[in-house]
């Protein structure tokens, strides 16, 4: 007697939409994320320009991240429904058999033509990716809120892990998809076909009455929590305040003079030319000025007005502030 044909569960319409949404969000995240990771490389110029600049690219990245998160939440609840209400086994996660298949394929020992384990590993990679990238992404999205409970170092760690894990996920998914496209043709329906329906119609109806409200509450709590967390802060001000500085201030007078500056001024102005390198008097009898035998007021007057052979120095040539430095050097005890 021939056995009954095994029922094949085709992908439902919602599952197809899920796959499409997931693929769009994943590709969007990759296209907007990779240029950010390699922002300093010249080749990222084109995707960044296409994205409307780095800030637009970041907004787009967050947009795709939201889609990705929404899809992840829906998928989790849908899997929960299939497991709890319909009673199917959660078979997309790889078990020992899948690991054995993987080792067998790499080791060239087995040629079964059964590539379902590939899909299971891909699924595991994506589940881990959603968890790691989701958590680290949320930390980066609202770093101030995150550091109210996490140490500050969590932010650079999250940034590093987010970037590296995204690269890891992309590499694996792209390689696996390439393999699926060129070499392997695993039948996803066959994977799902392993899932025997264990529950009766009454049981399904009973469980649905429990699951749907609970799932809705969970969805509201998770989405509400995410909304609250993501909108909880304005991480940075939109415009860095411009520094105020007095640009043109020729008559700035310091409270105390710096003898080092005074010494340099002595050499660079014409002082040393007449009064000697060390202000110890000139060869034509110009007076020694170190230490000066006059008050600062008299010194100031003489510089500004001049006397005899000594020319007057204007305040544009020798500002008042520089005279204070000059005086500090002249009055500094000679070693």
């Amino acid at each position: 007697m021939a056995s009954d044909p095994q029922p094949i569960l085709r992908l439902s319409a919602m599952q197809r939409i899920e796959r499409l949404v997931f693929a769009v969000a994943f590709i969007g995240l990759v296209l907007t994320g990779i240029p950010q990771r390699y922002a300093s490389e010249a080749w990222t110029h084109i995707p960044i320009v296409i994205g409307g600049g780095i800030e637009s690219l970041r907004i787009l990245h967050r947009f795709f991240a939201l889609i990705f998160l929404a899809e992840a939440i829906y998928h989790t609840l849908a899997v929960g429904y299939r497991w709890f209400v319909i009673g199917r086994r959660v078979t997309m996660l790889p078990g020992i058999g899948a690991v054995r298949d993987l080792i067998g394929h790499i080791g060239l020992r087995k040629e079964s033509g059964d590539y379902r384990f590939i899909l299971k590993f891909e699924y595991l990679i994506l589940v881990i990716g959603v968890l790691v990238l989701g958590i680290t992404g949320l930390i980066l999205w609202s770093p101030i809120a995150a550091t109210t409970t996490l140490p500050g170092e969590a932010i650079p760690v999250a940034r590093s892990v987010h970037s590296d894990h995204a690269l890891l996920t992309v590499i694996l998914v792209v390689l696996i998809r390439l393999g699926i496209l060129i070499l392997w043709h695993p039948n996803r329906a066959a994977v799902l076909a392993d899932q025997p329906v264990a529950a009766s119609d009454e049981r399904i109806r009973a469980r649905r009455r429990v699951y749907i409200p609970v799932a809705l509450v969970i969805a509201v709590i998770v989405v509400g929590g995410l909304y609250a967390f993501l909108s909880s802060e304005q991480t940075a001000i939109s415009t860095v305040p411009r520094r105020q500085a007095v640009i043109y201030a020729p008559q700035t007078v310091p409270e105390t003079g710096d003898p080092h500056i005074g010494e340099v001024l002595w050499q660079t102005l014409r002082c040393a030319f007449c009064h000697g390198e060390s202000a110890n008097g000139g060869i034509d009898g110009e007076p020694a000025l170190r230490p000066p035998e006059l008050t600062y007021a008299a010194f100031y007057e003489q510089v500004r007005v001049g006397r005899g052979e000594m020319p007057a120095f204007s305040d544009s040539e020798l500002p008042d502030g520089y005279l204070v430095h000059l005086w500090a050097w002249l009055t500094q005890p000679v070693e």
Partner: protein
Amino acid sequence: MMGKAKTSLLILGIVLILMGVMVGAAAAQEQGGDAPTPDPASDAYCLLCHADPDQVWMLPSGESLSVTIDPTVLAHSVHGESNPEGALACADCHPNFRYPHPVSLSQTVREFQVERYAVCRTCHEEQYMRAQDSVHGEFLREGRLEAATCVDCHGGHDIQTPDEPRQRISLTCGRCHGAIFEEYRTSIHGAGLLDENNPDVPTCIDCHGVHDIENPATTAFRTGSPQMCAECHADDALMERYDISTQVFDSYVAEFHGSTVVLFEHESPDAVTNKAVCFDCHGVHNIQAVSDEAGVSSIRETLLTTCRQCHPDASADFSAAWIGHYAPSPDNHPALFFANTLYAVLIPVAFGIASLLILSDVIRRLRRRRSQRGNDNGI
């Protein structure tokens, strides 16, 4: 009688001749003896008046301008005896100024100075044109006469080599930018230059340029400023002398703020970004060392305050997100170090396994195809 009259006339004539000779001699003495009048185009001719220590020109504004020239000062300037092209004459810089001088339309001393500085272009065309492109040139064209001309920085007659000694550079800028100079002189850079004559620290022109000085208030200047700091702080040989990490720039570019700013610089330097650049955290002219104890404790204490300038709601531990400019290690931010190490291993290993999976399958298929071909040939 006639004889007496003749004698008197003769004596009178002699007296008059003698008086004439004396007056002439006195006049000649007053004019420098019998020295010839100098050529009107010569320096000596100019100095007949301008060597006078009290020569002053009164302008319509009521201001006075000293027009006394000390020939010794001129001779010791770069345009004097040491000039390889030969000492300049007054007329080289003051053409068409023969006496009587042409009438100036300037009302004030400053107007006169601005009117006159274009003469520098005669010999220093390149520097002059670059100065026209500078913020000083731009302001002068806008009528902001306080902006510097060639003469304001280099002097009129007492022109010395502008970067000898090196401190002269910043002292020159400080004459107009006194408030900024006062900040700079107490900074790590300013103290190094002015107190220690350290040739490695930047003077004003190392950051702002020389003649084509860019307006530092622009967005483009701000966005490009990390590259400016990197010119010294990414220089291994230079930083090694001070035990300063050259990772400061790379670590900045690797993190969020730096990567954004570098992108802005490449893509749209005039677009405003709210990401911090070096001077937002370290200060502009008042930059202090972070290697000394005071600096480290000061920075740690004020880091949160610094962060809150742009992140006003920053939580108390938020500033710990900044890991500094040193690469993470088992001792310095171990969590980050281990995360980086984990993925440095995981990514190539995962790539290897996935590649191996594909490669093994390709090999298997090739073998199968060959064996099938062998079987076909056998038939």
